[in-house]
């Protein structure tokens, strides 16, 4: 990584569209794009031994997924609420709270790889493979056999400060990560590395940047400062505006 800051082509600027109902006055949004600076280590190929169906599917080790022009996928970006404090939630999210969060065992892979859930929601775990899976969501102490073409529902009752692992004990190579918070201000970066969190109460908030291959994304430079030792950055959300962090470069050495 050379010493001068090489500007990389600015990501596509998407126009922030406000939901009609939320009064734009005291809610703001944040968005940005996370890219890898340099080429990260190629994750080790998966050892697939079980079930011919999985072997044929040849699932890929997606612990580090780098998309078009180095976009880093599956980075968890979320508002960090210090222990014991509460944050008020935009009414816009009330309707979404009832919908179940789906997690699909598909092609001996978990879709999505990075799951977001709120305390109170229901996690609906589907299995659309012809082989049986047993999904082990450690944070919910849930570990149940899911036969092919059926599903299991579990109430999301306990959360944690950091994302935790989801595994399948029949196919130990399958892995996903789930972040459970009791507020909706969480996001994961998509294929193009972009993330967006809408309707955040205006004011200074601390945002956590975390990725399974790097843990806390430490000392990452971004607009208005850098993340600290624990991958957090104090950012100010202005009412009615979208704070665009643009491209956030994560050093390749941070991801192993």
């Amino acid at each position, binding site marked *: 990584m050379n010493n001068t800051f090489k500007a990389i082509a600015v990501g596509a600027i998407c126009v922030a569209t406000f939901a009609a109902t939320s009064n734009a006055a005291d809610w703001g949004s944040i968005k940005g794009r996370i890219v890898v600076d340099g080429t990260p280590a190629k994750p080790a190929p998966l050892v697939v031994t079980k079930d011919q169906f999985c072997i044929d599917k040849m699932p890929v080790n997606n612990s580090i997924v780098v998309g078009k022009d180095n976009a880093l996928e599956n980075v968890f970006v979320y508002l960090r609420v210090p222990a014991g404090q509460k944050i008020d939630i935009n009414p816009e999210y009330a309707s979404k*709270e*009832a919908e179940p969060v789906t997690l699909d065992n598909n092609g001996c892979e978990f879709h999505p790889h990075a799951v977001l859930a709120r305390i*109170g929601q229901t996690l609906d775990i589907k299995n659309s493979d012809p082989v049986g899976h047993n999904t082990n969501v450690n944070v919910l102490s849930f570990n149940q056999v899911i036969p092919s073409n059926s599903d299991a529902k579990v*109430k999301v*009752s306990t959360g944690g400060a950091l994302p935790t692992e989801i595994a399948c004990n029949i196919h130990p190579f399958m892995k996903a990560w789930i972040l459970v918070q009791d507020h909706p201000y969480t996001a994961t970066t998509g294929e193009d590395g972009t993330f967006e969190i809408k309707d955040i109460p205006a004011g200074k908030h601390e945002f956590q940047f975390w990725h399974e291959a790097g843990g806390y994304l430490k000392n990452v430079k971004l607009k208005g400062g850098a993340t600290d030792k624990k991958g957090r950055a104090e950012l100010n959300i202005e009412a009615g505006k979208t704070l665009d962090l643009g491209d956030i470069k994560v050093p390749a050495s941070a991801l192993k």
Partner: protein
Amino acid sequence: MEYRWRLTNKMKRLFGISGFLWMLAVSLSGLSGCSGRADMGPVADAANVKAIRDVLATSKGAGSEQAAAATGTGWATIKGQFVFDGDPPTMPPYNVTKEAEICTINGQAPPQEMLVVTPGSKAIKNVVVFLRDASRVNDSAKPKTDRVEFDQKHCLFLTHVVGLTVGQALDIKNSDNTGHNTNILGSGFNQLIPAGGAIPYKVQKDAQVPNKVTCSIHPWMTAYMLPRKDGYFAVSDADGKFEIANVPAGEPLEFQVWHESGAAPGNGLVGTTPDAPDVKWSNRGRVAVTLKPDDVKELKVVVPAKAFRL
């Protein structure tokens, strides 16, 4: 020549030194042996452990399990009404799979009773409220012995939810002209009630949560029976009203609110009492409240849709 075994001075000194060294080695190994492997990490130091302990001792009880405070004096009454917040789902009819001519009301299968809400007033029926463990029981709430009627008609349990005390008898009637075999789960009672017949069931032991009552011949028939060791329970009626009289006053009480489709663990029902801030709800549908003697506490309980598992 007899050989006299005598230690020469040199050898004596030699023995002395080696003997001493040997003793030293043994003592060192002995001492080091019992100090064990050096464990890592800090150890609590007495000073501020004591400081913290004094502070913690004065703190309030933790979690919803209120510490058993001294029992208060006097009695009070708690009553109120359960109201559904939002528009309630319409109940589909029971899927009658057998003896349709008996089990339907003028050709129509009766609506299910998983969540009975009177339209308009939105009152919720069949919500069970009971005091979890009473430190003292008023005479009016001592276990009763009168009989409770429990009839079945059109393959329906006419009383969907019933509460009774240990010692009471349930007269299980069958006013259909087909057999029902009433099975009270968890109590071991599972008998065939012939058409037009009646069989009494004497309640022996109480339960933490209402027992489900089913009929093996008509599997869609369901009812719930709550046996308690004291009279501190109530089932909300058609307009959602309930009343429990003479509960112990002046001490923290914990009521369990239960509904057959309650979403909280153990079918608890988590509601809200907007106009009674001193009432605290736990996420298992347990209500913590303290009543003043001779006080009649009126609670308007608003229950959101997400509190039900529908």
